[in-house]
Each structure stands twice: as C-alpha cells, then as structure tokens.
C-alpha cells in the first residue's frame, strides 16, 4: 500500500521535474570515518539509456516506462505494465537509474565499491562524467557483455555539494537484474582505509581456512580416517565461498578470471557444503543418520555439482535458489538431529557441534536477509565470520575427539600394564622356565617334562594348632615373613618353589641333590635367626621340618584352558613329603632319603668338594608301623638325618 502510494506520488513528481529522486546526506562529516549505506528511492527508466548530457523533453521522458523504486532491489518485481513485467521478472532487461545526492562536502572526493552493484553490466556517471564501467551494457540487453571487477568508483562533488548519479544497467542471463548491491558511500580516503581493513580481515579468515584445510588433509593422510577428509572438503568449500563471494580476494589475486567462472566457483560452495556437512556429521556421530542414510542426503548435491559445470551459466544461475533451499534444509535438518542427540548423549562433542551449527545458522539467516536487502550491522556480511567460527569449532572438535581417543588408548594401555603386573605375580615363572618356555603365550595345557630332581618338602611344626591361637592377620604375617626369608634361599640354590600348601612348601631342585641338602641346612640355619625375630615381635618361635628326596618327577600344566596351574606328579614327591613327616617323630630338623644323600655325595666328588654336612642313619623300624606301611614304596630301611654344626641337633 505504502509502495503504491509512493509510486503514485513519484509519478506526480516525475511529470513536474526531471530529477525527482533526491537524497540529502544528513551528516556529511561522518563520511570521513564511516560508510553511509544509501537506501533510498531512485528513478528508474526501463529499456532506455538516458545519458546525463541528453536533454530529453518531458514528453519524451514520459514515453519511457519509468517508476520510482527503492534501491537496492531487483527489477524482477518492479510495478511495470504486464508486457515489460514478462521480461523483467526473468531478470533480463536494461534500464537507467538516477539519483541526485545533495549536501555533500563541496569539492570532496567520494568513493563507493562497485563489485556487485549492478547485474550484470553497468556504467556509472557522476554528473556528466563517466566514472566507472563494468562490462558493456546495452539498451538491447541481448548484446550485453557481462563483466565484474573488484573495484571502486570515485567522483567529486561540485561546488554546491550535489552530484547526480546515473547508472545504466543491462542483464541478459542472471536470474535477478537491476541495481542489486548496496550503495555504500565513503569519502575516498575513508574508503581506502575501510577497504584495506576488509582485505586484512578477509585474508586472515582465508588464511585460517586454508590452514585448516591443510591440517585436515594432513591428518586424513596420517590417520587414514574419513572425518578429516570430509572436514577438509567442507572447509575447502567454505573457503571457496569466502574468496569468491561479496569480498572476492580471488578476483584480486587473479583479475583475469571471467565473471561466469567466478559465479561457478561461488556456486561450488553452495553445492559442496550440504553434502560434505552431512558426510562429516555422519562420521562424527554415526547414530545421527540412523533413519536417513547420509549418502541419500549428500547425493543430490553431487548432481547439482555436475550440473553446475555442464549447464550454461544462465541455467546454472537459475538453479541456485533450489540449491540454497536444499543447503539450508540440510543444515537445519542436521542441527535438529544434533539437537535430538544432545538430549540422548549429553556429551561435549554434541554440544560444541550444535553450538557451531547455531553460529552457522545465524550467519546464514543474516546472509539471506542481506540478499533480500534487509541491512543491519552496518552492511557486514555475517556469514563470513560465521563460517570461520564454524570451521574453527569443527577443527577443535576433531582435535578433541582425536585427543580423547589418543588418551583413552594410553589409559587403556596403562591399565593393561597394571593388570599385567598384577597377573604376573601369580604366574609360576621358574616353573615355566623348567618347561623351557621362553614366552608364556606359548604355554599350552597338558605340556609336561620328565626330569630327575631333588625334592624338598618343608613344613612348619604344629602350624595348625599355633595358628588357631593367632589372629588371621598374624597368621598371614607370620607365614609371609617366613616365606620371604625362605624363598630367596631356595632360589639361591637354583631351586623352584613348586607349591605353597598352607604352611608347607614343596621345592624342586633339578638335577642336584647336593644343593637341595645344602639349601635345607641353610634354611634351618636361617630359622634360628627368624625364631629370634619372631620372639622379639611376640610371635611363636616356629620350627620347621625338612625332608629331601631324589627321584624322577614329571612336571607340566594342568587344569583347563581357563584356569591353568602347574602340576607335578610323582611318587617321589610323596616320598619327600613322607620323609618330612618323619622329622616330627625322629625329632630331627632335616631328614633325607639315602638316595638323595648318595647322589649328593657323587655330585660333590665330581666337583672335588666335600659335603658340608654329616649324616646319621636312623632305622625306619624305630618308627611306627603305619608309616612303614604307607612308605612301602621307599624300600630303604633307613633314613638319614642331616647334621651340621651350624644348625640345632634336634627339632
């Protein structure tokens, strides 16, 4: 309604004056520091190039279809008669815009950016002087030669501080035509400052994106994962948009790039972003696209991409709105899906991701508003910083995830090392050495080895009755103190502790009876000291009896695959245990079977030594019948008591 009224009013003014559209600059002083985005009504003449110097009569002017319109705007929707509208709504056409600027500083140079001011070719006159030309506009728009330069137009205000700006525009392929860009007026110096500053910030943004891309590609190569690859492509797409759109650094670096190629590069980003954003998110959190496969969402953009390169530019251009709709749908969908995930997952990754998408969405909405000529933030394009913020957040996210995996692996490894140590304490290492296995993983169930060995059995006298008088903690303290002292002795004599049986120990000394006997002597010797130690701590003075035998044993692994244990099997082990049990009856600290002593003697002789102990025969008859019967397998009728001046005579 308002617009219609203004049109009616303007129609009335046009008939009375040649230049009806006037814009008075309120504060010309501010232009030396800030830009002024001029949004005002311009005169527009359809299909005709009215040169500033031409003196057309009012009548002639009235013959040209003209309206007063607010700029920036697309002429697609200007209120024209239907036959013109049929053309203008496709974006094609030509025409002249006119505006008189007043209250400028007299004789002051002013500048304004012209990069995407008019589509697709235009000439700008200030008063009667041609100040800028982009391509070759033509009244017959099919003859237009489109071009675009990343440049500025400069004019000087006259003595009265007024200037008439005349812009002639023609468009033969773009889907929207007219004076579309913001008319940002600066004083020339201020423009220069502003422009360099823009260059500075955009280049820094570009640098950041470039480095992110490099980093992602590097990571993708090193870690061979898809997340980085997709993110690299996504950032590259964003990068291509930033260098080609609104502030085209690419155009500065390579001024020779044709207009249409620049457009295609710009579209590239729109085509790429949705597909890679989908694929990337899918890699980030596989649960998101449970119901809709990510590839289905990503697929259309590949078709669009192909079309972008194949189709002529005017058709490719017309595809953009659909593509944009698609892009924002995908981004919106991803955001919603991510938001849903947050309620399910509550993790850091989702929260950061949704935040980054929000930033992107805000930037995108701002961008769309700008495209439709709603100006805010002093004409800044919020999409660029939004893109950069998005990319940085994404890369930090990826770094975070990688780092989390990394530390997780390290923690897992730590845990494994710890359990390994804990388990290792239970592994009978020496025993497995006897099986001649270097690597414990090689050990299988049911392996065995038969060898000759001395068997030593040691037991604490009356341990059961002693232990009943003690608290359990004292029992274990006593036992472990005792074992701590005895076990190293057995190792010292190359023996192996085969088994702990309550208070008893069974040790095996492969191929050496002498060392077993020597060990027994030293064990008893150590017990003297140990008894004193126990006494000083108020513990019982425990005594041990030791029996030594020599014979064949078979050792191996038994049990089942889940619970393996070392087993040794031989009647000779039984004899050793029995011999030990005689110590109680005979009241002797160490008893040995004649066979053990005999072998020890041979060994000593071979090595040119004498035995370190003396022996005393004790006939077995003196021991009760029941023992005689059970020890029937030991056919010897005597047993030898080992004596040494280092140990006590009796038990």
């Amino acid at each position, binding site marked *: 309604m308002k617009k219609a009224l203004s049109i009616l009013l303007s129609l009335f003014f046009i008939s009375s004056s040649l230049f009806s559209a006037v814009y008075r600059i309120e504060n010309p002083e501010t232009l030396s520091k800030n830009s002024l985005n001029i949004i005002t009504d311009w005169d527009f003449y359809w299909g005709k190039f009215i040169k500033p110097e031409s003196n057309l009569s009012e009548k002639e002017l009235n013959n040209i279809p003209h309206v007063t319109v607010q700029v920036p705007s697309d002429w697609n929707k200007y209120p024209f008669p239907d036959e013109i509208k049929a053309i203008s709504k496709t974006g094609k056409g030509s025409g002249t815009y006119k505006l008189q600027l007043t209250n400028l500083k007299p004789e002051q140079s002013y500048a304004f950016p012209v990069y995407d001011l008019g589509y697709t070719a235009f000439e700008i006159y200030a008063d009667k002087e041609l100040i800028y030309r982009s391509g070759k506009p033509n009244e017959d728009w099919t003859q237009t030669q489109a071009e675009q330069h990343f440049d500025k137009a400069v004019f000087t205000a006259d003595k009265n501080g007024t200037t008439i700006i005349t812009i002639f525009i023609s468009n033969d392929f773009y889907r929207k035509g007219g004076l579309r860009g913001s008319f940002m007026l600066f004083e020339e110096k201020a423009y220069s*400052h502003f422009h360099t500053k823009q260059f500075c910030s955009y280049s820094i943004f*570009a640098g*950041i994106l*470039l480095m992110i891309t*490099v980093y992602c590609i590097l990571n993708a190569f090193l870690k061979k994962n898809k997340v980085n690859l997709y993110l690299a492509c996504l950032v590259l797409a964003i990068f291509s948009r930033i260098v080609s759109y609104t502030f085209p650094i690419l155009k500065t670096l390579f001024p020779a790039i044709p207009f249409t190629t620049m457009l295609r590069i710009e579209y590239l980003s729109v085509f790429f972003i949705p597909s890679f954003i989908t694929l990337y998110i899918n890699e980030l959190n596989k649960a998101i696209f449970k119901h809709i496969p990510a590839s289905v969402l990503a697929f259309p953009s590949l078709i669009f991409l192909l079309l972008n390169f194949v189709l002529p530019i005017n058709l490719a251009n017309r595809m953009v709105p659909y593509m944009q709709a698609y892009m924002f749908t995908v981004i919106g969908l991803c955001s919603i899906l991510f938001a849903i995930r947050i309620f399910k997952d509550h993790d850091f990754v989702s929260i950061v991701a949704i935040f980054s998408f929000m930033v992107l969405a805000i930037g995108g909405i701002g961008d769309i508003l700008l495209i439709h000529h709603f100006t805010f933030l002093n004409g800044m394009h919020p999409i660029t910083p939004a893109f950069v913020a998005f990319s940085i957040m994404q*890369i930090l996210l990826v770094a975070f995830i990688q780092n989390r995996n990394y530390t997780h692996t390290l923690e897992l490894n730590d845990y494994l090392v710890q359990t390994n140590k*804990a388990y*290792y304490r239970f592994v009978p290492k020496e025993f497995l050495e006897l099986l001649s296995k270097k690597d414990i993983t090689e050990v299988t169930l049911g392996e065995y080895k*038969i060898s000759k060995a001395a068997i030593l059995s040691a037991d604490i006298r009356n341990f059961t009755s002693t232990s009943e008088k003690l608290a359990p903690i004292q029992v*274990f303290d006593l036992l472990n103190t005792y074992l701590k002292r005895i076990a190293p002795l057995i190792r010292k004599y190359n023996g192996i502790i085969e088994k702990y049986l309550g208070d008893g120990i069974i040790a095996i000394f492969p191929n050496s009876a002498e060392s077993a006997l020597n060990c027994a002597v030293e064990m008893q010797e150590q017990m003297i000291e140990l008894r004193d130690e126990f006494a000083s701590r108020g513990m019982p003075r425990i005594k041990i009896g030791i029996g030594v035998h020599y014979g064949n044993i078979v050792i191996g692994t038994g049990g089942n695959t889940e619970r393996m244990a070392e087993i040794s099997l031989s009647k000779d082990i039984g004899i050793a245990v029995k011999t030990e049990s005689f110590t109680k009856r005979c009241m002797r600290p160490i008893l040995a079977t004649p066979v053990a002593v005999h072998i020890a003697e041979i060994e000593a002789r071979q090595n040119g030594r004498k035995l370190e102990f003396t022996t005393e025969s004790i006939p077995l008859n003196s021991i009760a019948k029941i023992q005689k019967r059970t020890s029937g397998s030991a056919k010897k009728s005597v047993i030898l008591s080992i004596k040494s001046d280092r140990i006590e005579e009796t038990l």
Partner: protein
Amino acid sequence: MTRHYSTGFLIFILFSIFISQASASSKINKKNKSFETLGSGWELYLEKSPEQTFNLIDNNTPADFTVTVPHEWNLEIKRFGATSPNTYGCYRYVCSNLEPGTKYALHMKESPGTASAFYINRKIIIQTGNPFAMLEKDFQLDPWHYSPSNSQSIPLYCEFEPDSKGTAEIVVLVSNYYYRKGGLWDTVYLGKADDIWRYNILTLVFYCIVIGSLVFTGLLNLFQFALNKKRTEYFFLGLASFAFAVRIGTAGYCSLGILLPSLCAEIKIKLELLAIWLVPVSILQIVFLIYPSNNRTVVFKFLKEKYLRYFLHIITLSMGLLSLVLPAYYSNKFVPYLQDILIIYSLYVIIFSISNLIKRKRYSLYNFLSFFTIAIGGIIDIIHSNSKETIPIPTLPFFILVFVIIQIIMLAAIQNDIYKETIKASDDLSKLNESYLRFVPKEFLRLLNKESIIKTKLGDYSNIEMTIIFSKVSIVNTNSKEVSLDENFNIFSEYLKTVSPVIKKYDGFVSKFLSGGFMALFPNSNLDAVRAALEIKDTIRKFNESEVCKNHTITPWLGIHFGKMIIGTIGEENRMDDTVISDTVNTAARIETVCEQIHKNIIISEAIYKRIPQEKLGKIQLTPLDVIYVKGKEKPLQLYEVHRKKQNAENLKEEGR
C-alpha cells in the same frame, strides 16, 4: 610405507605453496615494469623543517647530503656533528616525465620512521604519526612519553597527480622519536595508482593469509596443549606460532596497523621484538622435548649441555622481558644483541638437528628440514633488514609458514606413531594378559572380595566358612604293570580336564592341584559339593571306558568336609600364590585317606551331614560308617558314605547278573 606417503605429500604441499608464492611474485614482477623504485638521487636536509627546506631549495642552496634510499641517516648524523639518530630531516626527490592528469601513487611497506609527512609539489598529501612535534622549539625527547604517541608505523600508500609539466617534487619530513636508526628506511615505490594499489593489496593479502594460518596453528596447538597438559611441545609450538604471526603482522609490512589504526608504534616495536626472543627459546625447547637431552658434556666435565641451554634461555628471556618493560627508546637497542643470540640459537638447533640426522634418529628429517628453512629465512631476513638493496622482498613469512607446517606434520606424525605403537603394545599386552590370567586364581580372589586383581596385595586374607573336597586318584594298570610317568601325567591331566567343568558346574573351583589330586572349594552350598562329587564319580566311570585311559583304571577318592577357613595370599611380592589355612583342610585330607583305606569313593564328615536338609537329598543316599579315629584328632569322626539310591540298585542288579 606411510612415511613415504607423508613425505611425498609434504613435498607436494611445499611445492604448491612455492608455486603460489612464485605465481604471486611473478605477477608482481610483470607489473614491476610499470612502477619503479625511487633509489638514488635523494637529497637530505638534516634538521630542517619543510618550510626551511623549501626556502633552501628556492635559494638554490645545495643539500647537506645526496643519498640512496632505503637510507638510514646514522652515518650522516655523525658527519653532521650530532650524536643521536633521534632527530628530524627532510628528503627531497624530483620526478619528471610523468604523464600529467594521470593518477600516480607512492608506496612504502613500512612508513619512514618513526613519523613522516609527504609533500608533493609543496602540498602535504599524507602523514604518519606526528612528525611536527619535533620541530617545536621546546621539544624534549622523553623516552617514557607514550601518550599521545607521535610515532606511527603502517604501510604507506598515497595517490597524487603530477603538475601540468609532468613533474612531482617529493619532499618527505622524517622525524625519529625513539628508534636506534632513523631516516627513509624502506624502499619507495612510485607508479601508476592502479599498479601500486594492486601491489600493495597483493602484499597485504599474502601477509594476512600467512598471519591467518599462523594464528590458527597457534590456536590449534594451544588447544592440543590444553587437552593434554603433558605435551608441552604443543604449548611451545603454539607460542612460537603466535609470536611468528605477531612478527609478520608488525615487522615490515604492518598489517596489524591496518586492522588497529590506533596501535601505538612503541607497542608495535615490542610486539615485533617478541618473535626474536620468544621464538628461539620455544623452538629449542620443542627440540629438546622431542629428543630428551642425554645430558652430554660439552668441552669440560662440568659444562653439561643442559646448563649451556638454560644459560642461553635465561639471558634471552631476561633481555626479552626487559624489552617489554623498558620504553621502546631503550628496548629497540637490544635488537642487535638479540639478533646475535638468535644466530647462536640457530646454530645450536642446526647443529643438533644435523647430528640427529646423521644418527638417523626418528623424525630428524622433519626437524632438519624445518630448521634449515627457518634458518635460511632468518638469515635472509637479517640481510634484508640490514641492506634492502641485496634482497628487496621480505621472504620470511613464506619460510615461517613452511616451518610451521613441517612442525605440525612432525608433531602429528609423532602423535600418530605413539598412538599406533600404543595400540600395538596394547594388543601384545592383552595377549600376554590372557596367558597370565590362566594362572590367576580368579574365583579365589573373588572370595577375597577384591574388585580388581590389581588391588590384591600380599597378606590379604578373608575368614570364610565353606565346603572343601579333598581328592586324590589312584591310577592302576589293568595288566598289573607299573604306570610310567608319561602315562601317569597324561591320564591325570585328562582327568583334571574332565573334572574341572563338573566342579565349575556346581559353583566350585579348584584351589590347588596336588600331586595326583586336587583341592576344590564350594563357597555356596554343602549339597553342591556332594552332588559334584557324585557327578565326578559318574564321569570317571565313563572316563575309564574312554580311549585316553585304555589299560588303566582310575579311581577317585573324595573326602568332603565343611568348616571355617582363612584364605589369603602368601609368597613374595612378585611371586604370589593363594592358600587356605585351616584345620578343615587337614581333616578333609584325613577323610580322603580314609577313603583310600576303606575303599569308598566319597565320604563326607558329620559337619556336612548335619547341614544337608534330608528333604533336599532326593536320590542321594548317605550311609553312616563306623566311627573312625583319625590320626591327629582327639575326637573320633563320624563319617558317611555318599552314593546314589537308584544307581546303586542298578549296580547291584548288574553285579547280580
């Protein structure tokens, strides 16, 4: 293989960066023809204001000196009789043969310092800082004077039109407020406005892209450090990246000055200095974090490498911190010393990385390449800052970028390698763990109430009441031959394999394998043990018929008892074992001996008999035996034989046939 790929990729990146750099510079060179550097033929009027200079020129008085730009007036100052380079003067240059009516532009990457005013045809067209403050009579040079700062250092660009004859007289007033060198110190470019503008913008874009890359790298590295505080090399690389970014943003082409026009030049110079002292320290630290020092001695026994390094660090850092605190007037005088130290650092790092390269240490190639690049860049930069004629274009940003990229690749490669190695190590460990675990008495430790085996200590114990089966087997050859040890072991081992699942089935576990038997514990119920014993007996009957024990009969003897026990861990810290200490075990062993003596397979004690509710027995029958005096026991034991009701009947039938 991956190493090859990544090295190839590295080369590709370097190559592409080089190409882009080359293409950018080639474009500049092409355009170079249309603009020129104003080198020789400048006249210098020292300590003259522009008005005085104009008068002198109009009176045809010859200039004090004729000089070539870029120019520092320190030498001329001495000949002039003054002592300090902190003074002012006018430079004059006359261009002729310009096209009248065409726009020309002047460009300097760094505005002359520290403040200047450009006059063209006696009309001031651009001013950086406030050079006029020095011309006032009562001007006093005060190093502590910051606000308002008279100095400014930004890229200089100005457009002008020559007069109708095509000549332009350029007069530049230069005032030096604090810098140790004064004068028109950078190359002056003159050309058509469009070309110069483009050259200016290209330089800006290139510098800012590098800055952006470095800022991101810094951010990323600091983030990595924040995530994993142990990896301090990331912190140092982040620090170095930021310092580099600041250096590129301030030194020479000061793009930071464009972003922040109010940036005070005195602060700018301090930011610029940041790189000279912060970067060497950081980089040396990175190197020694990657290759921990083996503390080699240098020359003397007491002069360890470490001390040398820390000594250097302390000197550099103290100078650097002083440069931050002191006014720019003093701190810029540190620069030559800091540059010398920088060379020492470079040599240090280069020697170290070459020695690593020779020793073929891991990642030494990355290290060497990156430091080589930065060293060359640094040397070129020093030459460039000292004599602009030899190397006109500052190439340091490019070298720095390459350096940082290689460093990132290296750190990523290191992290990746550690990651892979850890995964591999974990694999090996878990395999090893599996084999260890088989020896760990899991059920036993569970009884000790330990959540994790890791927490088990020597001497842990627990008081518990449960059932114990003490079992032995006798293996007899059916042909009355003696059983060999091989046969004995094989049969026994097979027997254990058969019996273990049965015990497990009734929630029991084997606590100890004995010579020719085992000791099993049933923590849950008495009946479990009895049932398990019966099933063992049945299983053995089948087992005797199987292939394994042809010609052999094995008979299990199972003594079952119930009572209090103390279970716990004994042994030594690194060789632990589980054990049960209790009279109950001894009694069970005695009961088993009774089994052998009276040839009954399964015998239970009265303790169990009392605890088994009769209604739950089902098909199990318990027959009381004669009271038996067991050795070592004062009281006689009432024992019961266990057998199945039905099977027993069947057995009788079979025997009857």
